[in-house]
């Protein structure tokens, strides 16, 4: 399944400046791992030592925080958009 992933400024050095890339995967976790395969370096930036999302990384599936869904195990459908967004904002 083809998933669009929106990339924040801080990570665009890994995608040659591109703000949106497409990857394959059937869950949020699979899609993010595929992102690391296509553009080496993503995993160490967004995952902590335990393999979970870093404390200050938010991931949204179709604009919903995946922590309100099933986290990295959340299934994704063809054509959906994932956004990686720095968590430190607002207030």
């Amino acid at each position: 399944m083809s998933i669009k992933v929106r990339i924040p400024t801080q990570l665009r050095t890994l995608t040659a400046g591109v703000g949106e890339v497409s990857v394959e995967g059937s869950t949020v976790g699979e899609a993010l791992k595929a992102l690391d395969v296509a553009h080496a370096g993503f995993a160490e930036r967004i995952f902590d030592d335990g393999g979970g999302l870093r404390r200050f990384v938010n991931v949204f599936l179709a604009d919903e925080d995946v922590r309100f869904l099933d986290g990295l195990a959340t299934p994704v459908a063809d054509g959906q958009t994932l956004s990686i967004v720095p968590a430190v904002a607002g207030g």
Partner: protein
Amino acid sequence: MDFVSGLRCRECGRAYPAEALHVCDFCFGPLEVTYDYEAVAATMSRERIAAGPRTIWRYADLLPVRDTSPVDLGAGFTPLIRADRLAAELGLGELWIKDDTANPTGSFKDRVVSVALTKARQLGFKIAACASTGNLANSVAAHAARAGMESVVLIPYDLEAAKITMTSVYGGRVIAVEGSYDDVNRLCAELTSEQPTWAFVNVNVRTYYAEGSKTLAFEVGEQLGWQAPDHVVVPIGSGSQLTKVAKGFEELWKVGLLDEEPHVRISGAQAAGCSPVATAFAEGTDAIRPVKPDTIAKSLAIGNPADGWYALDAIRSSGGSCASVTDDEVVEGIELLARTEGIFAETAGGVTIATLAKLAAQGVVRSDERVVALVTGHGLKTVEALSGSVGPTATIAPTLEAFDRALGDTYEPAHQPAARSPR
């Protein structure tokens, strides 16, 4: 010249120059402004501060930007009011209210925005933007107008009417988003990647912006005669203000402005309908679980608080506490403060006062402590919260008889001839 030595990631410690950065490129941790405290200590003095303007800019030596003509509407140096009548109701001893309703647009946000836009202008930004629960929107729109900058303010569509009017009147663009504040915040965080020339004060300028809240601690210290209080009660939205109040007291000591080392207990106040920090505190965990807010305290309705973890840490390491109060208690808190001290606070102030009352009843805030409660926004912004709770005592015909009937025997009759003095 300012005394900023650079930026440092709070998580991994990586150092960055003082540019338009807000999170660590590596781990996404928040960047914190660092200062050359020895140089500040050699320059800053009580006399130098006293000779400064009666605004936040009297503490410019500990702010992240220096400008002879800052973006300024007069934020800060708000009254610190001794609240004996409220203290008596709550069984407390020495209680003070930091009355930030007195700021130019009626909330503490003027402190952070004055700093943020002064820095943004220095960094070359032409457009001021933000994600806001209302108070920040008011302040960004007003300060941008003052500075001759364009503004784009994003708010949840269902904010209180006064907050929308108070934002729109300044002539900038106001975008009402069909979603919660957390949705607006996510949208703005994504927009900063697409609009890198816009200064989103609480996103890509947040590192500098947040420093403005330290002035609350600076003022409290100065207004108490260069002494720190024993206990401060602070409302929590994102948690930024609370962490910066803690930093402010530490800095006062570090640069030699206090006679005694401060040991300030810091307690947090949340609304029960949005209490991720209070919940984590009660459960004794480090993990802040995001929530979907449902409370009348819209200015604190941030379900995913960016500085929640740091606020929790500041509370625990200071020996403070954190509690939440229901919407009914928020309204009671607003009325209690108004009735006892003549200060009309918005819902966030109701959260602070109701939480103070709760912590006092629990013996957490003690009668032997010098206590300061931060009241951070004006009640006229959230009059909806009081509809049905307060109103006219009576509605009458314009006659003396009707007046006497309405007030019954609670007062002396107004038209008693004997009460008139002879000519």
